């Protein structure tokens, strides 16, 4: 598996949000989260564009700055990785219509909730099928998300990287770019 850079994407008051950069040699290359929001936020389809904006607002303002990456927001576990938005219990959803923000919410963004104050965003796409694996736009990203998460989790377990003051740092060199 190719390497990637784990880079800070948004430093919120309650949560530091990271994304990954696949172009290891180019510091100016966009992260996967930037690519996701650029692609779907600027899309001509208004429903999808607004869905991307809602995800962006929720992640930056409500997770990053107000609440942190509370476990309650991440009950959609897609194997190793997580996915946003939140999916509520079916019974309660029928009453409050809170599933996926709202019925028919079209996007999924893969991520890894490391802790309440550290979140890593990957890429995502449009959910067109019951399962992520069968949705053309996100099936590959789904599998990539599992691989990225495994690698980050292993590095945390092995102690190659650690969480310090709500940030991910290398064990030896705090200021070093984190390439995994």
């Amino acid at each position, binding site marked *: 598996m190719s390497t990637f850079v784990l880079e800070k994407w948004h430093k919120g008051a309650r949560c530091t949000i990271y994304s990954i950069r696949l172009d290891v040699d180019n510091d100016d290359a966009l992260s996967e989260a930037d690519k996701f929001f650029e692609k779907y936020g600027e899309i001509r389809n208004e429903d999808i564009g607004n869905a991307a904006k809602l995800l*962006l607002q929720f992640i930056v303002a409500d997770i990053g700055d107000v609440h942190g990456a509370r476990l309650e927001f991440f009950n959609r576990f897609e194997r190793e990785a997580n996915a946003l938005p939140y999916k509520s219990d079916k019974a309660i959803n029928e009453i409050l219509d809170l599933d996926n923000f709202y019925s028919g919410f079209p996007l999924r963004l893969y991520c890894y909730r490391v802790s309440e104050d550290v979140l890593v965003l990957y890429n995502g796409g449009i959910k067109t099928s019951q399962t992520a694996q069968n949705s053309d736009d996100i099936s590959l990203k789904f599998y990539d998300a599992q691989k990225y998460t495994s690698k980050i989790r292993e590095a945390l377990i092995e102690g190659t990287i650690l969480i310090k003051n709500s940030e991910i740092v290398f064990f030896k060199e705090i200021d070093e770019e984190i390439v995994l």
Partner: protein
Amino acid sequence: MKSQIVKNMLVNMPEDIKLFSRIYANLVLRINNALDEQGLTKSELANRMEKRPSEISKWLNGDHNFTLKSLCKLQVELGINLIEIASEHKIHTPSIKVDKAENKVTQDNIIINIWEENRRAVNNCKVVELAKHTEFSNNYQSYGQ
């Protein structure tokens, strides 16, 4: 983030989306918090609510099933407050004044407009229990122990 496009999206975020996101986050936390405090499962809560329709639905009077999305849109469009939810911090961190001179603790009003059961649970908490969740916890240690 590096993308100027994404930064611009944040700067120009529509107000109804901001409102939706904020209320949604608070709702999710409030629901889970209320379930925890009352020892209810989600299905038990659903059953309870089916027997007693929510205050919002009754207020809007009808069988019309307003979604949160439509409520937020409506609130922005009409410029009036249709739904107000105290943030989790307001529930767990009521303003508590510690007056050491008079050796008493007073609690400011806690405004909670939905989840009546949860409101009663909060109001029935002992001051000591409430103070555990506040930044004043160090101050109250000397009170009433």
